[in-house]
């Protein structure tokens, strides 16, 4: 099968963009039509709607060496190929005089209900009429042909019986219909397969995501259970032995583990709602949004004697405002919490353009992140320091929100002690 769009590309072109050359196997058809020419002696061509000749054979000198060789008369050939041949129903053929006064017969090739090309037979004369030599001499003068050679070429044009030509054309017409139908079916099948493949890939991705999610959740929720059961077991033993000294500590461990489970469940609920209840995106002024977030973080910022430098004149973005607040909150909180013992702590918020893509960033001069951890920090419940506060959901949440908005998030940091720059993209509001 020839169809490059069906076989070679992962996604076939949209129907309206498919051209005849995409769906026919021109070399195979050429071989077939060569045989047809040997059998019948009829010149033929398969031409697309731009006038491009894809398959041809048996062409007459009068067409090749004169009409198509001279720019002005060649224009007539193209016009004839495209316009005079139009308006023919599938399975039917039309006999007409081309603008250079040769007989041509055309039958359309359809793709569904789209006319994508024609099969032509022609460059012939009928045996029941005499050529109008005066007309052709006038044509020779008009286009500057060598008149004698031109008339000689005209005399070489074969003359056929109309009925024979009609039978041959009926064959071509049926062939065209067959090509149309089989190609149309192939495309429909290919598109269905592609759609199915996309749906399958999507499903597979969702399944993998779900599997990772279940794995993480089952592991992380089981951990506190082991702690609770382990220390209550130990407490029972100690109680039986009258060994009271570590009881208070163990009870605290049990209580903290229960709190941790509670936190995990709360965060999971939060994460699971993001994909679903994201509101219709609205146009949000990033300047105002950042200002809001910084007001909310006034306490922690003041505690660490921090100010945030915000780049003026930020653009508007299209987003779910409440979710975008969460993104910024998390990124600022991380910048604050991982400042380390920096003597001159600084946080910046701004926007830069990378290859015309607007990239927002929260940049700090805190403890930084080694390059090898740049990916895993965005994983659910992944923490670089097991004993730091929180469940480790913050960046997973940020990632999910940004991705649901069709954006991307990543970190840039030259390593420990070098500060971090968290970057994300988001759709800009159209003016």
């Amino acid at each position: 099968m020839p169809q490059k769009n069906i076989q070679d590309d992962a996604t076939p072109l949209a129907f309206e963009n498919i051209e005849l050359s995409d769906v026919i196997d021109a070399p195979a058809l050429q071989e077939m039509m060569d045989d047809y020419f040997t059998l019948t002696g009829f010149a033929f061509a398969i031409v697309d709607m731009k006038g491009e000749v894809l398959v041809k054979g048996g062409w007459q000198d009068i067409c090749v060496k004169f009409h198509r060789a001279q720019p002005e008369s060649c224009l007539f050939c193209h016009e004839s190929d495209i316009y005079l041949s139009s308006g023919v129903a599938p399975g039917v053929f039309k006999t007409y005089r081309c603008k250079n006064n040769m007989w041509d017969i055309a039958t359309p090739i359809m793709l569904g209900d789209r006319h994508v090309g024609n099969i032509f037979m022609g460059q012939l004369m009928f045996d029941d009429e005499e050529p109008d030599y005066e007309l052709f001499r006038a044509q020779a003068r008009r286009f500057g042909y060598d008149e004698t050679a031109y008339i000689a070429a005209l005399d070489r044009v074969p003359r056929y019986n109309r009925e024979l030509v009609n039978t041959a054309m009926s064959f071509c017409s049926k062939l065209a219909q067959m090509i149309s139908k089989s190609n149309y079916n192939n495309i429909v099948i290919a598109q269905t397969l592609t759609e199915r493949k996309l749906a399958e890939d999507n499903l597979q991705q969702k399944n993998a995501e779900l599997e990772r999610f279940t794995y993480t959740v089952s592991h992380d929720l089981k951990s506190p259970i082991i702690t609770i059961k382990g220390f209550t077991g130990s407490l029972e033993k100690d109680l039986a032995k009258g060994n009271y000294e570590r009881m208070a500590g163990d009870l605290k461990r049990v209580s903290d583990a229960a709190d941790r489970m509670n936190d995990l469940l709360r965060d999971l609920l939060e994460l699971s709602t993001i994909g679903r209840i994201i509101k219709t995106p609205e146009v949000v002024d990033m300047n105002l949004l950042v200002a809001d977030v910084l007001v909310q973080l006034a306490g922690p910022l003041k505690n660490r004697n921090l100010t945030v430098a915000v780049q003026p004149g930020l653009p508007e973005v299209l987003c779910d405002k409440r979710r975008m607040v969460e993104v910024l909150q998390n990124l600022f909180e991380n910048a604050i919490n991982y400042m380390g013992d920096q003597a001159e702590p600084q946080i910046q918020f701004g926007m830069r353009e990378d290859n015309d893509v607007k990239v927002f960033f929260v940049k700090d001069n805190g403890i930084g992140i080694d390059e090898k951890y740049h990916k895993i920090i965005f994983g659910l419940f992944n923490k670089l320091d097991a004993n730091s506060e929180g469940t480790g959901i913050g960046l997973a949440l940020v990632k999910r929100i940004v991705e649901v908005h069709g954006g991307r998030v990543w970190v840039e940091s030259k390593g420990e002690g070098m500060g971090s720059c968290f970057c994300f993209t988001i759709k800009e509001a159209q003016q």
Partner: protein
Amino acid sequence: MMNGEPLTILLVEDNRDHAELVMRNMAEFQVANTIFLVEDGQAALDYLHGRGTYADRKQFPIPHLMLLDLRLPKVDGLDVLKEVKTNETLRPLPVVILTTSDAERDMAMAYEYHANSYVTKPVNFDDFSRLLKDLGFFWLAWNKRPW
């Protein structure tokens, strides 16, 4: 234990409560002289290779047993295992995966990377105690090792 040499365990565990449970039980049964605790995969590798903080081999000897959790900060437990088992010097070190995960894939991967044993942390305290006692005695007392 057999010949009175000090026996050491490297415990790689990011959950401090679980680490305390392990150490409390190990102490009770007196199976090891020293348990070194590291809280992430990177620290485990640094310890095993004697790098950075762990450069002094006298203070931080190659352990006789490693109890390794899987889901760890920085470097995953499976990656730690893989590195140990592809390192000629470290390869004989018995690595027991001690994890909350009973995911088949984790177990399959652990054995793929030549874990010596794979056990999940029992929820029940008595089982937890017994497991650690059995593990300690088997790997430190019964098992023969090149160092």
